């Protein structure tokens, strides 16, 4: 699972690419924590635009990221979530805990 970082100042965006299942989640968590430790952001945004499939393993990844951010006194958000992953997040009530931000581009219309 590829994790691409971007952003400036204390705001970090991590873009996930590929299928986020249990197999990929271990590596995703490692990469994510490495990026957080390197950037020490006050705000983290997880961009799911490149996630072609996600199961409940994605929830554990988001919860881990949120825990790390809160421990540093920061916040986390999610954006650009494709419909399939959105359904998984919604079933788990994740958007009540981590806000879903309006993305600048939506690829939802493309995939439906």
């Amino acid at each position, binding site marked *: 699972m590829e994790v691409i970082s971007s952003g400036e100042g204390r705001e970090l965006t991590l873009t996930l690419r590929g*299928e986020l*299942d*249990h*197999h990929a*989640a*271990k590596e995703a*968590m490692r990469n994510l924590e490495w990026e957080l430790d390197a950037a020490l952001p006050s705000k983290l945004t997880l961009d799911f635009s490149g996630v072609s*499939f*996600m*199961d*409940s*393993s994605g*929830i*554990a990844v988001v*919860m*881990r990221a949120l825990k790390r951010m809160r421990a540093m006194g920061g916040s986390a958000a999610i954006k650009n979530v494709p*419909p*399939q992953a959105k*359904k*998984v997040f919604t*079933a*788990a009530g994740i958007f009540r805990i981590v806000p879903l931000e309006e993305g600048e581009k939506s690829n939802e219309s493309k*995939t*439906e």
Partner: protein
Amino acid sequence: MKVKPNNYIAIEFPSRSVNEGLARAAVAAFAAQLDPTLDELGDIKTAVSEAVTNAIVHAYPQEIGKIALRACIFDGNLLEITVRDWGCGIADVEKAREPLYTTGGEERSGMGFTIMESFMDSLAVRSKNGKGTVVTMKRRIALRTARR
């Protein structure tokens, strides 16, 4: 008086996490003959992924064991998916099905059964301590009249 499926696939693989993708891709390819929507296909893949991951993580925590995946099509566009393992079994199925309950630690969310339940029409879990677990899920694929 078991009803025979109109079509089925049966595959077997060791409980290695690399096989999770294969399992859901195989079922998705098989289900394609029911002409599901992208949405329905996404639900089915997600449910299969959850069931297979459960077997990999929980049924065989210390060893690599066998997982059998079966998908059947019955009359009325009904898809039935069975994931079977011969692992340690679930001590308390009721508890395991509760949202957020997990014995998987920080790597798991405890939402697996909840997602299988909400993404499929029905979910049945049979488990015996030390013998294994069978998860059976059903989903009726809507017949679409307006096809191209």
